[in-house]
């Protein structure tokens, strides 16, 4: 998704809002609402994660940790300590933001594989702690969560949650699009394009990386808290390494550096396993195949590949074909004399 973001931005946002609004006309029963809600929650996480992975060029294999901390934090404060659910969620989200800030600086000094492994280690430590501290978290059996009550009204039922989550998804996409089309967003994308070039343009790499890391963690924590109160239950599987991988797969499958791609990826990969529940045994095989296949055949992801395909079909060539310049620069290539 290049250049003019004005049109995709307002147009895409309107389209998304329209899809959400039209949903109830199309979804036949509560089961479908449930899938839609889960897809939207995943989409919120993925929109944030995409800011980190797709736009800023970082990676996190531990984001289920942030999701899970948002979920468990809110669940524990509300169910075990009787906090009002909104306050519990707010507290959990704040705690996750603080944790992401603290851990962000040292972790984001790393690059590539090392960064991947550090985030993975971090995510696993969280999942192990959650599984072990069973007095607090209910351990492997999970924890029951009180419903979300706002000023005495309990938010319950698929249809009510659908509207809340749908609205929040549109809001999340709006925030993400705003961020991308701003000096901060350009700074992040510049870091991805060339960290050296960004540095000499005055961009503080460390500060920006931590910023986007915290933002993506907050998105995940929000979705986690909502998930806990919606489902009425939370288990350690939501904090697991596998969940982290699923999230990354959704982002990568949908399209890196494409907010709508993240939404699409989350939707497809939430709906797909539901379609496959008949073939429950093949779930892992299909997930693994999808991951490998996407990266090999469609490395840019679903939405950018489709967009490029449609762009070619339209035949509109914006710029004339040009000679390949010599010495293609790579991100971070060192200038030497």
């Amino acid at each position: 998704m290049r250049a003019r973001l004005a049109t995709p931005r307002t147009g895409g946002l309107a389209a998304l809002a329209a899809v959400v609004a039209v949903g109830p006309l199309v979804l036949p029963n509560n089961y479908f609402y449930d899938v839609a809600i889960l897809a939207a929650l995943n989409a919120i996480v993925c929109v944030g994660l995409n800011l980190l992975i797709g736009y800023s060029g970082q990676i996190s294999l531990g984001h289920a940790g942030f999701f899970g901390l948002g979920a468990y934090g809110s669940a524990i404060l509300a169910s075990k300590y009787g906090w009002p659910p909104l306050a519990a969620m707010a507290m959990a989200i704040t705690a996750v933001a603080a944790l992401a800030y603290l851990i962000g600086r040292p972790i984001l000094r790393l690059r590539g594989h090392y960064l991947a492994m550090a985030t993975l280690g971090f995510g696993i430590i969280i999942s192990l702690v959650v599984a072990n501290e069973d007095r607090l978290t209910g351990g492997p059996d999970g924890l029951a969560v009180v419903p979300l009550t706002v000023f005495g009204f309990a938010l319950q039922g698929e249809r009510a949650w659908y509207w809340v989550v749908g609205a929040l998804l549109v809001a999340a996409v709006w925030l993400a699009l705003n961020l991308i089309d701003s000096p901060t967003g350009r700074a992040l994308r510049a870091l991805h394009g060339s960290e050296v070039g960004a540095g000499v343009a005055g961009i503080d790499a460390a500060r920006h990386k931590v910023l986007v890391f915290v933002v993506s963690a907050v998105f995940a924590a929000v979705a986690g808290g909502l998930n806990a109160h919606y489902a009425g239950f939370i288990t350690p599987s939501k904090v697991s390494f596998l969940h982290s991988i699923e999230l990354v797969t959704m982002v990568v499958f949908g399209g890196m550096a494409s907010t709508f791609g993240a939404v699409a990826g989350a939707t497809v990969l939430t709906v797909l396993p539901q379609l496959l529940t008949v073939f429950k045994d093949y779930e892992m095989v299909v997930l693994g195949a999808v991951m490998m296949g996407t990266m090999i055949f469609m490395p840019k992801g679903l939405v950018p590949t489709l967009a490029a395909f449609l762009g070619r079909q339209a035949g509109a060539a914006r710029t004339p074909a040009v000679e390949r310049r010599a010495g293609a620069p790579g991100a971070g290539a060192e200038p030497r004399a």
Partner: protein
Amino acid sequence: MSGAGGALAMSGELAQYLATGITVGAVYALVALGFSIIYNASGVINFAQGEFVMIGGMSAASLVASGLPLGLAIPLAVAATTLAGLALEKLAVEPARGAPVVTLIIITIGASIFLRGLATIVWDKKLHALPAFSGEQPIALFGATVVPQSLWVVGATAAIVVALWWFFGRTRLGKAMLATSHNRLAAQLVGISVRHVLFLAFGLSAALGALAGILTAPITLTSYDVGVMLGLKGFAAAILGGLGSGPGAVAGGLLLGILESLSAGYVSSAYKDVIAFVILLAVLFVSPRGIFGVAAAERV
């Protein structure tokens, strides 16, 4: 407890933890070696490494269960795993050569999930046992009680390490692989086929993983998801010792195994698995190159 008796009991306890630690550490070392070999040949972290361990153990267990003697089941299981490794390289890694790091990471993670799913279909989700190689009568050794299988694990690992040292140091093929890891372009210029080296690296790593799985299955049992933690901890060991370094992989594996065992014994057994990842994070934060660090993976 009286002073001398107390000390003796303590040292017996310590010896026991060390014995466990070294046994487990040997397995981590084999997995870490697998990571390092592939990393050296291609710069790729093979997240499916743990699955090689699983396939080796599960294949051997099912072959033995179907009536084959151990002596036949083991080489067949290693061969099957090696084939899986070669297939992985040809079908998933080679088509994506030159892709950015994130892409390769997703591919090998996808491969590990795929292989695990395949395992549940070919076999099942239950635990499987492999008979111990030479009986289960515990032996007293330096104040600790060990099962004979532990000696097999440590002894076989030592033999494998020596064999690898000979392979990389003395044979043409091994030296070619080593050359590729040091400077791919130069290796190509002297006629070494980097594609073949990569192919072989995966095969070799798969075999190493399989052996780790087979050696340890009699002690820890095996199942479709035994590779997940083993793979991750093996990777932690590789980073601890220095990614890309053979001696580092061995040292890192042993050190991790011992630290894990000691902390499980003296600190908290519930958090046994956490120690590996805490060490991983500590190494990455403080000194990513590890103990025997080769060049830093990402140049600034």
